[in-house]
């Protein structure tokens, strides 16, 4: 097997409160589709999607976690080896923003040091009709500034998006892909990724490619 343009595997995890639209963002990104009333994720879901950014091809391995899951060690299982994380909140639900703040903090404390994080305020479509004069009745409950400030404080990416309309969804993944340092996968690979529990063979392939070794032998299966 040989790939003309070897894809770099990036493990990405989605975190956030229940029903903020994590699975819907993934569905929009992977299938360009949207389902009203998507059922809750139980445990976690796993999807892959390739994404071309300039000359770089990234294969996202996306872990979509359950929002209600409050088990202490379940979420870490998914974000432990992640190179990227998307922390999602709902711009109409202040509680989800509080939760997002905690996720960002937890990621900085517990996840890999050079993890690339994006904070995403989803359901932008619901606030498009808001008028600036009538703040009382506006759907929006978390302002752009609040989101941007948190992202700035934490030094992470920030987007507002709508999985329903598709607004900004691809930009999140492109933004993450552009920010992930090219050297990062290679440098952390030999000790870290290669022997990690969850990466498996995919990673060997990408490591081999990044180390300029021949990947052919590693990925035969």
């Amino acid at each position, binding site marked *: 097997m040989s790939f003309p343009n070897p894809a770099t595997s990036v493990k990405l995890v989605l975190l956030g409160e229940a029903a903020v639209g994590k699975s819907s963002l993934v569905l929009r990104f992977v299938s360009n589709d949207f389902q009203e009333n998507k059922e809750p994720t139980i445990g976690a879901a796993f999807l892959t999607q390739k994404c071309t950014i300039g000359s770089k091809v990234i294969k996202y391995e996306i872990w979509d976690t359950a929002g209600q899951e409050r088990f202490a060690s379940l979420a870490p299982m998914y974000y432990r080896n992640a190179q990227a994380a998307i922390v999602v909140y709902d711009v109409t639900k202040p509680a989800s923003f509080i939760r997002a703040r905690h996720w960002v903090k937890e990621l900085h404390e517990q996840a890999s040091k050079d993890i690339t994080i994006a904070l995403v305020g989803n359901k932008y479509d619901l606030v498009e009709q808001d008028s600036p004069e009538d703040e009382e009745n506006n759907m929006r409950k978390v302002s752009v500034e609040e989101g941007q400030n948190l992202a700035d404080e934490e030094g992470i990416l920030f987007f507002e998006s709508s999985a329903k309309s598709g607004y900004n969804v691809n930009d999140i993944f492109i933004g993450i892909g552009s920010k992930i340092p090219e050297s990062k996968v290679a440098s952390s690979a030999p000790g870290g990724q290669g022997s990690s*529990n969850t990466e498996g063979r995919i990673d060997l392939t990408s490591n081999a490619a990044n180390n300029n070794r021949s990947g052919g032998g590693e990925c035969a299966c």
Partner: protein
Amino acid sequence: MATMLKENNIISKALLTIDQYKGNLNNLKSSVLDNEYTPLNCPKYFSRTLIWKCCLITDSLSIHNWYTKLHDSRIIYHQLTKRNDMIIPWWVLDPESPFFQSKELSIHNKSNIKRTNSRTSRSTTTTTTNSVSINKIPLTRVSNIDDPLRSPNRSPVRSTRSPTPSLPYQITEEDIELLQIIVLDIERLFPGEQFYQSTNSITHKRHLIEILYVWSRCNPQVGYKQGIHEILGLFYKNLYQESIEIPRTNTISSDDVKILNLYDINYLNHDLFTIFNKFILTSGIISKFYESEEVLWKTIETFNVYLMKVDQLIHYNLLNKLKLESQLWIIRYFRLILLRELGNDLETTTLLWDKLIASPQIHSYGGIPELLMFMIIQLLIQLKTNLITCDFSESLSLLLHYPIQSHLHNQLTRHEFIGNLIKDSLKLYERKANDLKLYEYGLKLNNIYNPNLRITMSYSGSARNSGEISATSSAPVSRSPTPLASNNTSNNSHNSHNNTSSSINHKHPDPKAEQLKFEKLRLEMRLKKKAQSMLR
């Protein structure tokens, strides 16, 4: 008249079934398990309500025993819903929610009921929880929410106390949160099911919310967990469809009334509550899969050990070669009892659950969870060729999107698939205490489901060619000092900060883990030797 037809139809089905099985519930149960009493085989007299309610409520196929048993069970839910602390605070919902009801209306149907001691079922922590003025909730809610990540348990809410005159029980912030999360999930219940998208669906959903709310309040140690709503949703749909309004006439014989009583739509929620509670709580599903993280890991570990005993190659490939820990995919299998793995409609799952309910395991604590483990193992064996040749992400994709469609071509293949699934898992369950028998039955299953798969055992010890289908028998032992138990291997060659399970390990005492590891290593070596000798 359509309704009369439905009654006659139900009476006739029940009588034919009772006659067929000579009034003996055990005969009916065997027939369900043997894949004989199915909608396909007995279109004239198959009744799901009859299986479910007779197995889980009346415990008898004799109609004369039904009335008392049903009454005793129905009164429990009746009394629960009349308690003041079980009033559903519909009025705290968004006024635009289809489930919103004024406070007066929400309380109205309880008002003529004598007040009972309203807090007996609450845990001590919650009874002392501060209450909040229900009028102020929308304003105070956000700022009062405690850190949801750090406080998984109910925590006191800092807020003003202000008594609500009409209610002796104070609705707490936790109650509101509970209702809101249940509503959130019920609103998006089975988006693909017509039944839950129809014009009546709001009524159905309101019943489901009520049952879940009451159940969660009765079981504060678990509360509401995502997933149980789908279990209840499947039960509700099936029972509702066979339920009827009992006509108020004198023309029905007393025996017929006894039969119709089983199908009485006015007691649908009551019976559902009992069935739901038996299915998830007394069976051990809640405690093994939902209640505590620690128990869930242990359950998964039990599964890993059974998998290794039944099919060493799959176990080796997933857990050792690919390092694909079972907890990455199995939680949904467990919690939803295969509901999302068996196709997009609920029909296949329902066929399977008929059998779970008729199985003897439903009456023994932990029985259904273990039976489920063997069903999953059987499903993996059917997928074996793929599982031992795919890479990490392909295997994971297969496990999280089980290729079920090939089994669902038509009603016959669907029934056969479910019949085999339950038959094989019951056989494995019978053998669960005997490693050798499990191993032998594993071989048998492989002969059935993978007749063309030739696995050659080379006992060379080099075992580097693990990508091939051959030469895997000795690999686990030679490759790593701790070939098994991804959960418990903290101090092996993986560097610890990258080990996905290191945080789990700290919680388990090491000696126990070590012992478990040793036991499994020993068992595996024994199995390898046995395998080798059999193949010579």
